[in-house]
């Protein structure tokens, strides 16, 4: 044995170590050199058979080599450990399903109602809900809808069958709009008043892709001493832009409603074609989203407000229509079919 052998072993280890990429293979290498039956153990075993003067030298050389190799192995082990901390999740399969309670969903109509009521609440409106069974007075007469108006027909409003045969028929009905909440609130409270009233409404329409005998509306109204048409425009612009997008354009068109004067229908630029004209907007470039106006003085008289003293605005919007536009839903019946494959998309 000579010193060359010792150096060769060290060189060999230095060549092999860089190729090691795991603790396991490092351990195999360590055992090969430093194990009980390793190369160094073999060298040590030979020492007794050597001449006495060489015994001491080789003994020293093997010991020095052992220390050097131990150092090399421990360095390598440290660097392997460092690497493991950087990307040591190679055996975690992130393709496996996560473990969590599934969240359910609020109905898309509830989501739209909550969104709109949230916006209105931030503008100072109080959100209240009213009964679905209404009197003819609250649903029609109080709102300045004349006795002979077609909307009072049995073709346009559901009436309740009276169980008292002596009672005058047609006195109770299912509200055909959320506007009766104007009458209820104004009869109960004095101005200033800002109210949003969401809820179910009913009309005897034959069901098809765009008609339903039950649907939802939100009525909003504000009354005080100096409420102006320009305020109506401001509130509705804020509302529509919050619901759809800041980019939409709006227009107010004169219209006729018995309970507002002046009245306006509100259109937004078509959110599908950006106003260029498509099938959703019937190539008009505009989508009608709500009806509105300044509350008619007769309505104020009916609730005991002085129309000379107070002005106010009111608006009513159909939730299904907004939801259909917002989510791109093409059939109103989907809302009431409650198919989980539909509900879970929202």
């Amino acid at each position, binding site marked *: 044995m000579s010193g060359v052998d010792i150096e060769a072993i060290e060189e060999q280890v230095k060549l092999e170590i860089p190729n090691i990429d795991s603790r396991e293979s490092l351990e195999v290498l360590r055992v090969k050199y430093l194990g009980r039956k390793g190369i160094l153990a073999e060298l040590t075993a030979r020492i007794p058979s050597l001449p006495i003067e060489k015994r001491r030298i080789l003994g020293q050389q093997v010991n020095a080599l052992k220390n050097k190799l131990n150092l090399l192995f421990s360095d390598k082990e440290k660097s392997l450990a460092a690497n493991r901390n950087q990307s040591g999740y190679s055996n975690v399969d992130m393709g496996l399903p996560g473990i969590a309670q599934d969240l359910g969903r609020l109905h898309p109509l509830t989501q739209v109602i909550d969104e709109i009521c949230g916006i209105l609440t931030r503008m100072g409106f109080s959100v209240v809900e009213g009964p679905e069974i209404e009197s003819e007075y609250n649903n029609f007469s109080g709102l300045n809808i004349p006795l002979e108006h077609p909307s009072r027909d049995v073709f346009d409003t559901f009436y*309740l069958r009276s169980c008292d045969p002596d009672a005058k028929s047609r006195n109770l009905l299912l509200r055909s709009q959320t506007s009766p909440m104007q009458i209820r609130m104004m009869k109960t409270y004095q101005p200033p008043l800002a109210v949003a009233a969401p809820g179910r409404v009913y009309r005897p329409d034959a069901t098809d892709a765009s008609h339903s005998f039950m649907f939802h509306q939100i009525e909003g109204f504000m009354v005080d001493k100096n409420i*102006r048409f320009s305020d109506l425009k401001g509130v509705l612009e804020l509302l529509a832009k919050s619901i759809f997008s800041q980019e939409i354009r709006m227009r107010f068109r004169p219209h006729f409603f018995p309970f507002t004067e002046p009245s306006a229908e509100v259109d937004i630029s078509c959110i599908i074609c950006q106003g260029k004209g498509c099938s959703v907007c019937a190539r008009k470039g505009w989508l009608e989203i709500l009806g509105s106006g300044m509350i008619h003085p007769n309505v104020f008289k009916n609730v005991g407000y002085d129309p000379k003293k107070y002005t106010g605005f009111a608006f009513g919007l159909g939730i299904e229509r907004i939801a259909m536009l917002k989510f791109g839903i093409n059939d109103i019946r989907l*809302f009431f079919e409650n198919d*989980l494959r539909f509900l879970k998309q929202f």
Partner: protein
Amino acid sequence: MKVTYNWLKDFLDIKITPQVLADKLTMVGLEVTSLEPAADDWVLEIEVTSNRPDCLSIIGIAREVAAITGEKLKLPRTDKRPTPKTQYRDFSIDIRDKKDCPLYIARVIQKVEVRPSPDWLKQRLELVGCRSVNSIVDITNYVLFEYGEPLHAFDLDKLGGQKIIVRRAKTKETLTAIDGKSRALDTSALVIADKNQAVALAGIMGGLKTEVGAGTKNILLEAAVFDPLIIRRTRQKFGMQSESAYRFERGINLDIVEAASRRAVELIEKVSAGKCILEKKSGVSGRKQSRVTFDLERAGKVLGVNIPALRAKGILSGLGFKLTTKKKSIFLVDIPGHRPDVKIEEDLIEELVRIFGYERIPTTLPAVKPRIITDNTRDPVSRIKNILVGLGLNEVISYSLIARQLSEKLNIETPEPIEILNPLSTEQEILRPLLASSLLGCISHNLNHKQDYINIFEVAKVFSRVTSEPREGLHLAIALCGTKPWLFPQGLIKDEAGILHIKGILETIFIKLGIREYSFRVDNNAANIGIYIAAEQVGFLLMANKDVLGRFQIKNKEVVLAELSLDRLFSQVNLLKKFIPLPLYPGIIRDISLLIKEELKVEEIIQMVKEKGRPWIKQASISDYYQGKQIPAGFKGLTISCLYRADERTLTEAEIKPLHAELTVFIQQKFGAQIR
């Protein structure tokens, strides 16, 4: 209402394109729903609101165009002519009730030649959607579209006697109209009659017998006004539609009847020869002049924009209103006959601003401090919905109107439901007294679409009669069906929905709403489990039986359902939260594992542990329970975790050991349990 661009041009100069005109009309409240080119002309279809019958005419629309563009309206000149004395001088009009028919003008035109209409006439009528018949009928229709006043021509020689009677039909009187159908009338219908019989259904359709045809020589031209309600009811009763009825129902301007009649005569003489030899009129002449005070300053306050007086006067007079200045900014406004819809100052404000332009009103935000009105149900309902969604349930919205038979499928006793007087079908005949049947319907639908796990809820009104008064209540219903797979590294757990799932959901709600005194009561004979708050039952919880499920076409599946009254629940809600100081000293937890008879109720054991463990046991809860292979039949395994703690010092192991041993033995003896 259809109008053509060129027809409008008969009455004023239009210097804007049809496209620009359509936009402008839309923006003053006459929404143009379509604009189509047609034979050297353009057809505009306009949606006229119910308050504007004056715009159901070319002249009416032309007047709006004049107000928009500032051009002058040129109405046709129809000069009055002298009437020669004739053999018809004894002709008379007999209106039985002036309320039914305020005005009737008859003109006799002799020696007409009924022929096909000239092209210009045919074409215009066709463009506005009216079929050409013959020159006489076409002219009456032409004037109807032009003036908005429906006219009717009778074959004079087929009228019996020199008399027109406007009267109610007699009971069982029949009339065959020009559509060939014979109708049995009653006194609700208004007819035009000769001395013998009804010859026309007033304002709706003429009679077949006196119809103008190829052989007609002499005609009687009717221009009249009829009561809108009578026309509407009769038309609806017989399911008839006509351009005349459409206009009479919405109201006719008395001022134009005479002019329309003369215009028709002029056209008949031109197109169909003939000569007008007689005119007779019966009824009111002119209407009551109405006048509204208009304050421009107030208009500015209502609108949020000030419109200069000169501009305001220009707009209103352009629309036909006559203004007299009373004071600075205050005007007296005479309302013209074609605008009976304008009654108050606000109506004039709208007239002013719709022509001025809604787009020129600025957008502002109101400076109000409105009162805050709290709705006592919206907030807790919203909390409940969010809790349920957090627990993985999906909200459904189902119809409040249902078939009576759907409600009965449930087999749950309900109060008398409220019936709908005029349902569209039996599917909507009652207002639902409970939500549960609707949820079963939803589950059935989803099972059909291969959903394995259905967990849904609805919050909605329910309806019933309480001592004959209709009553609304707010309910929550929850339904679970099927098996929910939970995939853990330890393996798949198939979690089949059962009573305890609904119990857990409800408890979460109760706890979150601060409701403490809730309980679930199992009565041996009851078909369901009662949900109680204190002593009051607020709802029920049940496992639907096979019969009920079968009626909903649900097979081989279990459905658990709960329904409760939120009105009753909400009276117990306590959302106030109060902090309880954290314990100063640590506690020690010791378990008791028992094997007890199946029928023993866990609740009793827990109560006993708490009672017996006073004052050291602060909490006792079930930390494990098991029934199955390792447990003898008729028994259940149970582990109760007991938390021992003192408020003023740290309890030691040595103190607890004998206490817990004693408690364990006590419970064992008390309930005949074995310690595991």
